[in-house]
């Protein structure tokens, strides 16, 4: 034992440095080659133009979303500055804030859970369907529905806040949530009661989901219960193009919203 230790001590430090560097080099070369795989498979002149167009549109979309969030903040700030001027304005601004919170137009923080869905790492059997081994829109919709049923009050997926108009669909091997293309692993953040995960795991639908998706196909399903969860604001459009509001009488300033869960 002491001989081995003595031999290790005798190795010059530059050799150890070089050895470690070569190890990292080998790892990086392997990672680079693996990442190159799918690109080589599809590389054509037409595709690179399409990829450039899609990347350009994604960049535009990010800029537009940032602009929307910034404009909404500017508008809210101006409204707040005028909030104390008149009782009627103050009341309207309070209602507007509540409506924006309900709509998902403000970022939220509170108690909740984070669930993660990942593609299976199991090999697809020769007679198997590759899509069954990928986490996709149907999985996300199932989990989201279960979360709403068990008491979630707000949900986001990979930073996209779910709203009344949000669709979750598979397009071209990606998942479209609101206007954003997102790729796995999918992180579903749900704001809700402190026992949200207990409620979720007690739901029969959750047990069936875990059994079929993880048990049969190896889809990665994990969760965490952090001290608090943060959800972003919805940064999409709330414009009504084909419809118009049918106003209801405003509540008196002292009345409260009716509590309850029945539609």
């Amino acid at each position, binding site marked *: 034992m002491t001989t081995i230790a003595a031999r290790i001590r005798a190795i010059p430090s*530059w050799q150890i440095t070089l050895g470690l560097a070569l190890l990292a080099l080998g790892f990086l070369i392997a990672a680079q080659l693996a990442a190159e795989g799918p690109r080589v498979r599809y590389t054509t002149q037409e595709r690179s133009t399409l*990829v450039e167009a899609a990347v350009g549109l994604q960049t535009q979309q990010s800029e537009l979303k940032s602009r929307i969030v910034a404009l909404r903040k500017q508008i809210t700030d101006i*409204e707040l500055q005028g909030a104390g001027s008149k009782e009627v304005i103050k009341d*309207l601004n309070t209602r507007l804030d509540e409506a924006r919170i309900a709509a998902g137009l403000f970022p939220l923080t509170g108690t909740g859970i984070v669930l993660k869905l990942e593609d299976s790492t199991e090999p697809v059997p020769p007679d198997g369907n590759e899509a069954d081994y990928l986490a996709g829109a149907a999985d996300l919709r199932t989990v989201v529905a279960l979360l709403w049923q068990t008491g979630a009050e707000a949900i986001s997926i990979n930073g996209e806040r779910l709203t009344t108009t*949000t669709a979750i669909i598979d397009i071209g091997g990606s998942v479209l949530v609101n206007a954003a293309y997102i790729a796995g692993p999918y992180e579903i953040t749900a704001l809700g009661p402190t026992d949200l995960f207990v409620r979720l795991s007690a739901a029969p639908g959750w047990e069936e989901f875990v059994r079929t998706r993880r048990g049969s196909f190896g889809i990665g399903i994990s969760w965490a219960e952090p001290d608090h969860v943060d959800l972003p604001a919805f940064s999409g459009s709330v414009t*009504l193009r084909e419809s118009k509001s049918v106003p209801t009488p405003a509540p008196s300033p002292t009345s409260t919203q009716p509590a309850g869960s029945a*539609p």
Partner: protein
Amino acid sequence: MRDRRSALTVAAVAAILGLLVVVQLRGQTGGSELESKSAQELTSIIANQNDANDRLRAEVATLQTQLAELQSDRATGVTSVGQIESELGRIRAWTGLDPIAGRGVTITIAGEIDASAVDDLLNELRNAGAEAIAIDDMRVIAQTAVGGVPGSLDVDGFLLRDPFTIRAIGRPEVLVGSLTRVGGIIAQLSATNPSATVDVKPVDDPMVLPASKRDLVPDHGHRRL
């Protein structure tokens, strides 16, 4: 001499290492996910993104107008009650806190159907641009969940009748086209739920969808400043 050669070797390896780290990191960002897609998939993504960006541009324009009016009112010392009421009405109607009116489509479903099939139908309507949806007299909001077993489905705990009707506001021709296209959601539902009949009709006269009765302000969180 030997020390100098060793130092040069380590320096050369470190340089290659640095280069590969940069290449690898650059490869992880931007279009790496898109690189693996076929031309057909990319075309579909581009078409969707064009539509989505158009909607976002329209939203930016609306907000810019609203901001300009607010700034102008503020400069002249006027606070526009009308403008705040208009904004409040728009957001409340969009969220489901107020009733909403418009043309669209009705879908009448009779017979036994899965809860997940109804959920898929709602998802398809949203994807086709529906601005508001109701199932019978219950407004569909973000939190709406369809549960139960075929024959006794419920929406947020309220049992559905047989038949029940889904009403959606949006461009009728777009909604009907999206639902009834070959291989679309109605065709899929008919194949997976053979005992159910699904009837889709465009509605050109304004329908009024009710407001949700739920309190949508969260109890377990607050606005993050």
